[in-house]
């Protein structure tokens, strides 16, 4: 008799969440459709001013991605909390923060990775230059996991509340500000032809800091919500 290793448990949590998402695959479209629609509204409202659209396109895409991420994050622990499987996850000898990280990674794979594939198309639609689109994609790649990781803390904190949705947005959006600032300044720099490596390194640093630190408060908040 041997206890399952942390890697096995980590893999099992990701695998289970992906399988669950596959069984509810119709719901996967929602954040994606939301993302596309919000972006499409801007050219309709602003008119066909190519120069203006080109100028604000990165901001539009980033804000839309941020809202799409916020839209799907509430499901991160809610279902597990309601059906009691969160209790099982807490009652393992494994570190809860590592299992939380597994859940956040699964959420990122399901909600953000599809956006990465659509985002270049949206960029083209808004007349962005192809090299700027490349930088935009890099910022999304580095920034969106941070959104999921930070969102996880707020979701865990609002878990005990029946209607936590609005409070969740109010808690989370201010915390998304730093990553938004670094991302848009990176894309700005790319548009003006300046080097972007500094901004991207900063985003890398934020990403690794978030991977290391955010699972701890999330795990603590989850335990609190069960008591």
């Amino acid at each position, binding site marked *: *008799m*041997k*206890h*399952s290793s942390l890697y*096995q*448990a980590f*893999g*099992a949590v990701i695998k*289970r969440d992906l*399988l*669950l998402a596959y*069984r*509810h695959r119709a719901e996967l479209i929602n954040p994606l459709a939301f993302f596309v629609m919000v972006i499409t509204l801007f050219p309709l409202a602003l008119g066909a001013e190519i120069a203006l659209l080109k100028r604000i396109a990165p901001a539009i895409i980033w804000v839309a991605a941020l809202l799409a991420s916020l839209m799907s994050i509430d499901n991160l622990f809610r279902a597990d909390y*309601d*059906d*009691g*499987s969160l*209790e*099982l*996850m*807490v*009652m*393992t*000898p*494994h*570190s809860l923060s590592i299992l939380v990280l597994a859940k956040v990674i699964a959420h990122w794979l399901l909600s953000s990775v599809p956006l990465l594939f659509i985002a270049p198309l949206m960029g083209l639609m808004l007349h962005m230059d192809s090299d700027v689109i490349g930088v935009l994609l890099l910022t999304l790649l580095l920034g969106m996991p941070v959104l999921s990781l930070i969102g996880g803390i707020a979701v865990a904190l609002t878990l005990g509340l029946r209607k936590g949705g609005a409070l969740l947005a109010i808690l989370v959006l201010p915390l998304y500000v730093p990553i938004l600032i670094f991302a848009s300044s990176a894309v700005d720099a790319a548009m003006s032809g300046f080097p972007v490596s500094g901004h991207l390194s900063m985003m890398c640093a934020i990403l690794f800091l978030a991977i290391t630190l955010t699972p701890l408060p999330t795990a603590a908040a989850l*335990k609190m919500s*069960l*008591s």
Partner: protein
Amino acid sequence: MNTKKLEARELSCIRDERVLFSELNFTLNSEQVLLIEGRNGAGKTSLLRILTGFRKPDAGDLFWNDEAIDDTQEFYQDTAYIGHNNGLKDTLTSEENLRYAQALAISTLTIDDALEQVGLNGYQETLVRFMSAGQRRRLALARLLCTHKPLWILDEPFTSLDRASIKLFEKFIESHANQGGLVIMTSHHDTSIPHTLLQKIHL
């Protein structure tokens, strides 16, 4: 199985300024079943949530094998819990649910054997969504059987079970205790678990 021991010293629980219980002491050893009785709202579930470590007691301490349960990791290696909801995923099959449970613990029986024992053979590929309340309860029991957990904490395990299933559940509780396990449960029903194994607490 090594002998295990759960000891509660001077436990108190206060909710909304009402004292549910105070200075509760008990020791539960291997091969014993602890039945917690009491009317509705007496604090049975609160006591169980303290014993699972989800809730901190307002006073008192808990010891698992003579060590205080502060760091719950070692305690959780040995503990299984079935609450009001079974902790099963509706849109996974029985087998997928059990496989996930095994991935987080020490496996003992194979999944097929565990399902066979609780009378759910042939339901391997059935989504939990399509199972009845009683069958879900049996599946939760199968989860206990296919993982190595000396201490079972069961909150009203007999709800929504028919007479045959209650008997089956009691048989497994009894044999778990006979093999050196510990069981803590709340129940409204009279149980047919032998008195030699049974301890009772009335809240």
